[in-house]
């Protein structure tokens, strides 16, 4: 029984889709991530239709009614730069074309502008975000480790500190219990 309970978080994690019984908990974002995302990216490069050769992978032989092709790959060639992009992510040809156009715009821009291009800036931001995340998590674990160590260390230290002091303390205490009752007796006697 305990084992099954113990495994439940893993089973939940392996499910490919969120079940209605276990809605995902909302994630908390820190302010620094927000400020980074707020800065607007440079606009996407507009590619002229005249510069692009679209091919639906021709020269593949008979088609039409004779063959039921499920592959609707789209290939785009950018004439001025010679960049070639292919997409076969979805079954829809128009969707594939849209995706291919986006990739082509990013690639051409990177070729033209280098580090100042949208894709490069995006990648740069992602890298920075990841780095800061790693840093934060490292800091957190370090603090956790420190936190775990320090209470233990305090106890340990306290014992350690007590041990050498015990001699003195005992010496001091040895006097006081003897002193106190005597003082009390003195006080009582004075009363």
């Amino acid at each position: 029984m305990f084992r099954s309970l113990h495994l439940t978080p893993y089973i939940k994690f392996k499910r490919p889709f969120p079940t209605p019984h276990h809605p995902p908990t909302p994630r908390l974002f820190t302010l620094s991530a927000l400020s980074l995302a707020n800065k607007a990216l440079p606009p996407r490069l507009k590619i002229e239709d005249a510069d692009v050769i679209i091919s639906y992978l021709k020269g593949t032989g008979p088609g039409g009614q004779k063959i039921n092709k499920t592959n609707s790959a789209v290939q785009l060639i950018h004439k001025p730069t010679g960049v070639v992009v292919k997409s076969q992510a979805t079954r829809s040809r128009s969707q594939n074309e849209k995706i291919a156009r986006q990739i082509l715009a990013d690639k051409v821009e990177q070729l033209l502008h280098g580090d100042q291009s949208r894709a490069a800036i995006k990648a740069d931001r992602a890298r920075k975000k990841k780095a800061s995340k790693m840093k934060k998590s490292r800091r957190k674990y370090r603090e956790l480790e420190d936190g775990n160590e320090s209470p233990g260390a305090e106890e340990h230290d306290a014992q350690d500190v007590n041990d050498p002091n015990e001699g003195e303390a005992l010496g001091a205490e040895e006097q006081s219990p003897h002193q106190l009752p005597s003082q009390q007796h003195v006080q009582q006697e004075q009363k």
Partner: protein
Amino acid sequence: MPRIPNRTILNAYQQDPLLPLLFQECRSLSLAKNELRWLRDRAVQVAQLNLAKRTVRSKYFIGWRGLLRSMCRARSRGLPLQYILGDQPFGNLDIRCKRGVLIPRPETETFTFHAASLILHDMLKNGRSPTENRATCLRILDLCTGTGCISLLLHALIAPHVQRTSILGVDISATAIGLARKNLIYNIRRGYLSDTALMDITFRQGNVLDIHDIFGSSIHTGPPDVIISNPPYISQKSFRDGTTTRSVRRFEPRIALVPPKGEYMSELPLNRQEDIFYYHILSLSFRLKTSLVVLECGDRLQGTRVAALCNDLASEFEQVGNLHICIWPAADESMTGGDLQYSEPCVVIVQRYG
């Protein structure tokens, strides 16, 4: 069909145990991987729906893995992917597919886009429309409509630019007409088509080869400005000799692929059975004085035969005006795969001026 080497199959198995099943139909690793991804997405989606309906407790419930496995087995027997998934994207639309109705092909999609641009630019912008009153209401006749894909996509592309459109889709099969009507409502509900489509598009059962049947139906809505068609065009020979793939031969309706034999052939001046639909459609277009005819053909040879047939027919009818017949996409010598290009489907476009 070349044999797939064992090494390739083993390699695929190591990537996913279901890939070798898909290999039987796909014949290439990249396509098999793509199909597996699409099937898995759908299986997960269906399982999720079942879960939402709380049929989990019933004993007929299958998880997404089981569902995916049975889908892959069906695919390995040659069942078309579109029949398994139940739909096929066509332009911006989503067309439902069902056994007994031909699946829309990507080539038809390209041709429909081209036809729409022809209608919008040549006919309407340049004012080449033969009579003035026709420009206000554009009538389109889609023969052998099947799933209704051409009619629906044409409406989606043209309707925003024209005052009124009226599209009539005709098919001989009652199953196809039922599915086409379902597709119309489905796409409106999804928001891919405007609400006016419900009024503009009608589907009607009719036989294209029976001239009286089809003539009567077109008179009902007025003579069409455009006739577009993707008729059955596969010859008996190429249906049998392996040019038509196993999956198409076994699972798609023969009536939508191969023109029928028999009484239609005897009195016609044709020597090829696969061209009879073109004869009937072209003679109908001359009778109705249609200004644009777009016909899909199986390969470039058939395209040239249809263009010649059109010239022959034009001499029989009087007052045909100026005809411009062309084959699209135009043959391009510089393109790669010169011979293969001739076996690809094409469209014959007949434009009529004045």
